[in-house]
């Protein structure tokens, strides 16, 4: 069997709004059945990227293929294969959950069963309630339900669990695992790093319109970023930290030095995805500030490009 082509392929994607470059050369691909998490701070270019893939925005440069088709030329047949959960939705809700799902199911050639989706998204009790009367988290479930009702091959989830309580978030995760098991390819953006760790096979981190790292969730940031940290308070009351692959030995040496006394505030920290992510974004910001602080370099570049 030949390997299946990637479901999403993005090469050197660029997007400017006037003089503002929102996306500056982002490249990644998503394989069939994979869940890819796009992470990054607010305004980093995540939503712009995802909306270009969904066909909502035109790109300024680069090449994009989604399900083998350029989103700029995606027709109704193409849209029938996508499921889209947008970041914001605040439509006036004068229809009930069931009515809305039934109507949207009718738009697709091969929809899921409405009752099945209502149960899967935990909306059974609210199925006869008008959407306008639902809470924020319940409305978000409706958004997710509408995103999967058409049995999509590729599902876009743009910050899907905003407003969910922890229990609802865990239920949502198991719903998504069900979709993954079924072979659905998923592109997820989220601010909850634990969510990305739970659901994602791979992740890309966008900052300032650039992809600053990409890889499987466990490899993100490189091996060095995963080195455990030993932290304690020394005799002078200062916080001390030591990065080491052998934290037990460091602690043992520390205890020996203190003649068996317990070190104050001792911690051994294994960096979570969140720690790795924050370090990457912080480094990138420092680097960007460094670039901005040396204007001579940018002047040189400016001179190369005639106005």
């Amino acid at each position: 069997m030949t390997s299946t082509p990637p479901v999403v392929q993005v090469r050197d994607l660029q997007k400017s709004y006037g003089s503002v470059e929102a996306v500056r050369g982002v490249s990644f691909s998503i394989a069939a059945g994979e869940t890819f998490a796009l992470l990054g701070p607010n305004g980093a270019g995540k939503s712009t990227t995802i909306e270009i893939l969904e066909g909502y925005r035109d790109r300024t440069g680069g090449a994009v293929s989604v399900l083998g088709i350029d989103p700029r030329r995606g027709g109704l047949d193409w849209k029938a294969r996508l499921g889209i959960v947008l970041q914001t939705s605040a439509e006036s809700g004068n229809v009930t959950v069931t009515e809305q799902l039934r109507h949207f199911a009718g738009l697709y050639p091969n929809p899921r069963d409405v009752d099945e989706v209502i149960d899967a998204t935990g909306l059974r009790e609210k199925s006869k309630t008008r959407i306008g009367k639902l809470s924020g988290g319940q409305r978000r479930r409706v958004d997710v339900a509408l995103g999967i009702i058409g049995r999509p091959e590729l599902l876009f989830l743009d910050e899907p669990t905003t407003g969910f309580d922890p229990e609802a978030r865990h239920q949502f995760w198991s719903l998504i695992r069900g979709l993954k098991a079924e072979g659905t390819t998923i592109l997820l953006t989220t601010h909850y790093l634990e969510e990305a760790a739970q659901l994602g096979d791979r992740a890309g981190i966008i900052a300032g319109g650039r992809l600053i790292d990409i890889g499987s969730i466990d490899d993100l940031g490189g091996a060095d970023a995963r080195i455990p940290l030993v932290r304690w308070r020394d005799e002078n009351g200062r916080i001390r930290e030591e990065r080491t692959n052998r934290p037990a030995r460091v602690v043992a040496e520390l205890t020996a030095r203190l003649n068996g006394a317990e070190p104050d505030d001792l911690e051994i920290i294994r960096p979570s995805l969140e720690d790795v992510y924050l370090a990457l974004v912080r480094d990138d910001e420092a680097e960007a500030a460094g670039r901005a602080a040396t204007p001579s370099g940018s002047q040189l570049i400016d001179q190369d490009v005639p106005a």
Partner: protein
Amino acid sequence: MSTTITGTRPQTKAPGVLCLGLARIGYETRLYFRSPDTLLFTFFFPFIMLGIFTAAFSSSGNIGTNPDGTGGVSVGAYYLPGMLAAGMLLSGVQNLAVDIAGERSDGTLKRLGGTPLSPLSYFVGKIGQVFVTAILQAALLMLVARFAFNIALPSEPEKWGTFAWVFLFGVITSAFLGIALSALPRSGRSATAVVTPVVLVLQFVSGVYLQFNVLPDWMQNLASIFPLKWMAQGMRSVFLPDSFAAAEQTGSWDLIWVAAALGVWLVVGLVLSRVTFRWIRRDV
């Protein structure tokens, strides 16, 4: 939420554009009757105005009475054709312009733009909703006029023939103009502020609230540029005695000009709708 989601992916044919359009009509009509604003300012507005005019001028006697005391009609009967024309305009222009501008700003259109719904099906749904609600409104208005205000309705079949084409033509023209006008408001909240003055001024200069023949010439000429004047004139030809034709601009009903004006505006509305409609405001 649970993980039981069946994974079969049988091949089925995509629903047809017209099929989806018909499904949209039902959905849109249901939404129309669930919106209190629309019910008050579009559906029942002509009823309220007809009631006010009938009550306010009930003691002022008939309009258009001949010197020998024959041929006049009650104030209510005189205003009925204007209210029917206003209903056509409100059902199309005001309803759709505010509705679609709202859907654009609250994200409804963006969501629909991400589904395999054709814009054509969407239009069929909107125009169908306008037709269903305008027909209900006109029928109810005539029933109220006949039985609550004791206004005689025409009995000649040819009058009803005129009613049918003026109504059909007027409503579809209004619907397209409403879709076109929906592109103007920058947000759903400003839609009412943009659309209502247009619709209100048109009603005042087109002979809906004020007797058209008492308006100054320049105002009559101005109103003749817009479609509402011709809808009202067509409706007057149906519901008023023929002696009232003398009060029109040229002394006759000019039905051929009614057809021509509505035809031109229909094309203008269609072209503007086609050119301006977007699921979302495109970025530059």
